[in-house]
């Protein structure tokens, strides 16, 4: 790991946090701030993916599932809050009414309470990840096979969500919320509050992940990424570590989903399937896997590019995205952060060489 002195790191972190927390809400319009809030929620998800891919070497192409579970939990809560204010003036969400349901399904009932919804948004995906992890890691499924299995999982999850329309809203997803914890979602100050909450959550997640990777656990994770068998020979059982970290990344994804939903206003199976899951990976790859700040940076950059591109050149977005995939893999595998560090190291080397050249010159003279 590159050795940046710790206090400089924290200074930078503090500066960026302050900008996001205070400068951005003042400077940006409501629309752009809302966008930034959405990007930052997704950045939490990217942190989770970075944790398992950049640091532990497991590529998951199905993280949309965990994101979706978190998102749907929060969406269920928000939808139930609409209650009698909705089109049909019943307590049932509107899509259940026109699907012919007369009673709230059992797994919707607990979602009346915000605390339960929030907890399940974080714990349910973690539980799911733990189960999947136990199943796959114990059989030593890794690398490519693991990636393909997660992809199949994403497909299965999105098919199920679509098929069980009366319970999940089907392809329309769950949308049209009015209030969260009594605050009106249409109010701009509430959206600003959600943005602040997202920034805080991102900050906490970042610190948490940083603590993990800097600890001894982090070293074990790195060992799993680089030489899992050797780690086994040394007496460690990688399964426990992998499951733990996979569960953490699932929880982060769920948290991201829960923050995403009230800001964007909709969650649907199109956020859960194969294509969005692969795009999540590219955010981390672009920013720089194996670096936490890279995950955040990559998410914001790629999503901002997508917003910008689709405003100006919709047809070229796919070309750009495709070339992004290719160039990140071929030309800058360490992403933007890696390239920046490379540049900084290059400059340092240059400076050192200049200094030694000057010293030699002075010697000669």
């Amino acid at each position, binding site marked *: 790991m590159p050795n940046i002195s710790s206090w400089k790191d924290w200074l930078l972190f503090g500066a960026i946090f302050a900008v996001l927390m205070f400068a951005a809400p003042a400077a940006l319009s409501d629309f752009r701030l809302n966008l930034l809030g959405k990007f930052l929620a997704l950045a939490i998800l990217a942190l989770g993916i970075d944790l398992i891919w950049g640091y532990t070497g497991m590529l998951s192409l199905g993280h949309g599932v965990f994101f979706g579970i978190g998102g749907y939990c929060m969406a269920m809560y928000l939808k139930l809050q609409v209650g009698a204010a909705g089109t049909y003036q019943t307590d049932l969400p509107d899509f259940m009414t026109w699907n012919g349901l007369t009673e709230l399904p059992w797994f919707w009932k607990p979602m009346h309470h915000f605390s339960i919804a929030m907890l399940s948004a974080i714990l349910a995906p973690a539980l799911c990840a733990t189960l999947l992890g136990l199943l796959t890691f114990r059989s030593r*499924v890794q690398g490519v096979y693991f990636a*393909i299995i997660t992809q*199949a999982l994403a497909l299965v999850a999105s098919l199920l969500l679509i098929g069980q329309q009366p319970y999940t809203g089907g392809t329309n997803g769950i949308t049209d919320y009015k209030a969260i914890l009594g605050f009106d979602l249409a109010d701009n100050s509430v959206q600003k509050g959600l943005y602040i909450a997202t920034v805080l959550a991102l900050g906490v997640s970042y610190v948490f992940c940083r603590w993990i990777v800097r600890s001894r656990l982090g070293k074990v994770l790195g060992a799993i990424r680089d030489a899992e068998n050797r780690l086994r020979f040394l007496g460690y059982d990688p399964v426990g570590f992998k499951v733990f970290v996979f569960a953490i990344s699932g929880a982060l994804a769920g948290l991201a989903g829960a923050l995403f939903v009230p800001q964007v206003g909709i969650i649907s199976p199109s956020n859960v399937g194969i294509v969005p899951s*692969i795009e999540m990976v590219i955010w981390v790859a672009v920013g720089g896997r194996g670096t936490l700040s890279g995950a955040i940076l990559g998410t914001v950059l790629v999503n901002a590019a997508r917003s910008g591109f689709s405003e100006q050149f919709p047809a070229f977005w796919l070309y750009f995205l495709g070339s992004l995939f*290719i160039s990140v*893999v071929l030309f800058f595998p360490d992403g933007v952060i890696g390239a920046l560090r490379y540049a900084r190291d290059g400059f340092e080397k240059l400076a050192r060489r200049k200094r030694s050249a000057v010293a030699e010159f002075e010697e000669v003279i």
Partner: protein
Amino acid sequence: MFNGLSVSSILLLMALGLAITFGLMGVINMAHGELMMLGSYTAYVMQNAFLRQFGDQGFSGYFAVALPVSFFVAGSVGLLLERTLIRRLYGRPLETLLATWGVSLILQQTMRQAFGANNVDVRSPQWLTGRWQVSAGLEFPHLRLFIIFFTAAAVALIYLLLFRTNVGLKIRAVTQNRDMSACLGVPTAKVDAYTFALGSGLAGVAGCILSLMGSVGPTTGQNYIVDAFMVVVLGGVGKLAGAIAGGLGIGECNTLFESFSTATMGKVIVFTLVILFLQWKPSGLFPSRNRSLD
């Protein structure tokens, strides 16, 4: 029963090329579906060319020409891909996955620009429409019979190629132990190139045939890719028999479950079963046995 066989043969056709690139070379090619799409579009272009040249009489002949042409077209694109991209990523399967996904996006958009976003119409030649009546109520469509026989023939050919020819010997050697083969004088780079081209060409042919059964459009490839990967992963990487077994397994199960419930649930159940099966036998039905731990 026949349906299950038919579905299996289609899956196998799609997965055969993938079995070669993934199974033999360890290269994850997410653009496999798009290579199939190229084959489908080739069929479309051939069809139009024949219509213009020969009118309705000679129309039926287009398909026989389209098959080798799609092999050639998809194979060349695959070759190009291998030379420019894949070759730099050997030994890094996850990177290959991401990079080829990028390629698939680019291919999709290119076809969209070239042919328009709409699906295009590919019509079956005369000799493939129609059914074979075995008995009252039991009819086999010619197209599905053709697919079954074609797939069987393709598998046989590939088997012959791999196990009875010099070229096949070289391919197997490079797959099993690259360094040793290089020491023994096998031109590994060239072998890699034409193995990948072979796999891609097969994808093109699959696409050409499937254009008669399904849609032909820029997003056609997306509909096939996950199924193809499932077959290869289930069957076990490294052995052709695995792909066959995988295709048969998934095809029959899919049909079975579909007839009892809905198509969606059928797919969900099959994939869940595959995921669970892989817990029990993580390397698939026919794993390649070797001495290394990884």
